[in-house]
């Protein structure tokens, strides 16, 4: 298929359709309303479902219902909206249903702003909702990668029967880049007869299925949580993804950065190289599970003097980086979160300061 020039938000909507997800519920919010506007036009063309819910609280439960009934479903939102969905996300994780959430992050806290940010790292990676649950969280750095992550999110959500989140920032949503929708990433929805409330007749079964998160018996709840934990442990084994940049040879500093921010760092690294300063980078593509081992190893390289966590937030991922580096090297943070993305020039300064 030929490449087409598309806005991130529209490409995300199209990617879900190409992946085989024809159910979308959402509530408008900047900077991702274009997904809803795109799918309002597009879903009817493919006989899909498009519904603008009355709030993100409701949308979260629309996803819970649809996913519980065994259908592929997704939504897109931005930070304040994801806060409202977090309740449903906890229920969906508890009830072990697959669903895909896209968060095009804007600056917070509260109403914050509408410009790019990575301030929802903790919210998506560490919880957001209540209880012991995790989401598989992928962070694209380009429109093409957003497409691919959205397309892979559905089978992953089904593999783990767990919510998957795509964590993008406003720029990923608003930027236009050439994209392709890889045919091989289209997938068939998995069989859900074992657990979904898709109707006993549908699955030709005489036993009913229950979709629920209530376990009043302490032992049963503990066991349920152990089961959930085993899934999250398996994600750590099987789903870690990252990309390294300029990290094959020796370098004096290691940058850990993701999403749009990592692209800025890449440019900074190229410029520094021209000046004779070698800097490596690990770019987590999954932020949960986090590429701990890769970061630890990269930080342990002989000449590496410092590890820099560079993020569009006030220091969230840096805590995971510190955990990964385990004291082997000093870990420093640099970031901004008002919506102004740090420039390559700024990053170059920061690297030099720490050398």
């Amino acid at each position, binding site marked *: 298929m030929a*490449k087409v*020039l598309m806005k991130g938000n529209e490409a995300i909507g199209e990617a879900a359709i190409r992946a085989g997800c024809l159910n979308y519920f959402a509530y408008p919010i900047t900077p991702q309303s274009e997904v809803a506007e795109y799918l309002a036009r597009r879903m009817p063309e493919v006989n899909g479902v498009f519904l603008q819910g009355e709030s993100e609280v409701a949308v979260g439960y629309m996803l819970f219902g649809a996913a519980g009934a065994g259908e592929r479903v997704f939504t897109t939102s931005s930070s304040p909206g994801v806060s409202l969905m977090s309740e449903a996300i906890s229920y969906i994780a508890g009830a072990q249903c697959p669903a895909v959430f896209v968060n095009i992050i804007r600056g917070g806290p509260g109403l914050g702003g509408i410009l790019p940010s990575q301030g929802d790292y903790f919210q998506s990676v560490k919880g957001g909702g209540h209880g012991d649950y995790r989401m598989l969280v992928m962070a694209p750095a380009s429109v093409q990668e957003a497409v691919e992550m959205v397309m892979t999110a559905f089978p992953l959500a089904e593999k783990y029967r767990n919510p998957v989140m795509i964590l993008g920032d406003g720029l990923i949503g*608003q930027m236009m880049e050439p994209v392709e929708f890889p045919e091989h990433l289209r997938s068939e929805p998995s069989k859900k007869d074992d657990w979904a409330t898709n109707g006993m007749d549908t699955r030709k079964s005489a036993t009913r299925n229950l979709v629920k998160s209530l376990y009043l018996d302490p032992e049963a709840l503990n066991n349920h949580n152990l089961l959930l934990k085993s899934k999250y442990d398996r994600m750590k084994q099987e789903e870690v993804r990252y990309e390294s940049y300029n990290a094959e040879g020796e370098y004096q500093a290691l940058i850990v950065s993701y999403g749009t921010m990592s*692209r800025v760092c890449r440019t*900074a690294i190229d410029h520094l190289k021209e000046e004779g300063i070698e800097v490596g980078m690990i770019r987590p593509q999954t932020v949960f599970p986090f590429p701990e081992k890769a970061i630890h190893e990269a930080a342990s390289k002989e000449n590496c003097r410092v590890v820099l966590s560079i993020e569009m937030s006030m220091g969230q991922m840096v805590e995971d980086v510190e955990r990964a580096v385990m004291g082997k090297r000093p870990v420093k943070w640099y970031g901004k979160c008002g919506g102004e993305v740090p420039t390559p020039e700024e990053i170059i300064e920061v690297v030099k300061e720490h050398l």
Partner: protein
Amino acid sequence: MQSEVMFAGFGGQGILMCGKLLAHTAMQVGYEVAWIPSYGPEMRGGTAYCTVVISDRPIGSPIIKNPAHLVAMNRPSLEKFAPVVKPGGVILVNESLIPVRSGREDVDEILVPATGIAKELGSVKAANIVALSAFVARSGIVDFEAMREAVREEFSGKEKFLPLNMAAIDAGRKSALEQPETETA
């Protein structure tokens, strides 16, 4: 090689579309491209701008502080962005609406009365295409005919606007090539 072009003007001047057409052209001829809009509350009635990055390798930072070139469609955007253009770039000034100059000695500044030309051709709406064409002709950033193709594609389905925009392309090029090259360092 990487090059960046900033298009800036009033909301409603077709700035974003202008950038999109350039990005589309560059993609068609095989470059990596990114089109980065300004978005946010400033869009309401205010200025609009976007940056197009064209490169022969994967594009890193989408945050461009110093673009290689600038197409300024109104005065505030010339005043705001002319100082940040890299030396040696092209600054296109929409002479019809901008009574001042960039004040830069180290760039190739061209004065194109884009709005006036478009008006003569029948609609001020085509001013963005006049400017795009003049810019492409002058900078040679992408193949001129490929750009013409991209514009034609954009207006397929809106046939009645096609002649106007094709005329805008020719007029834009003429205007750009009539001007002597400014001495740049």
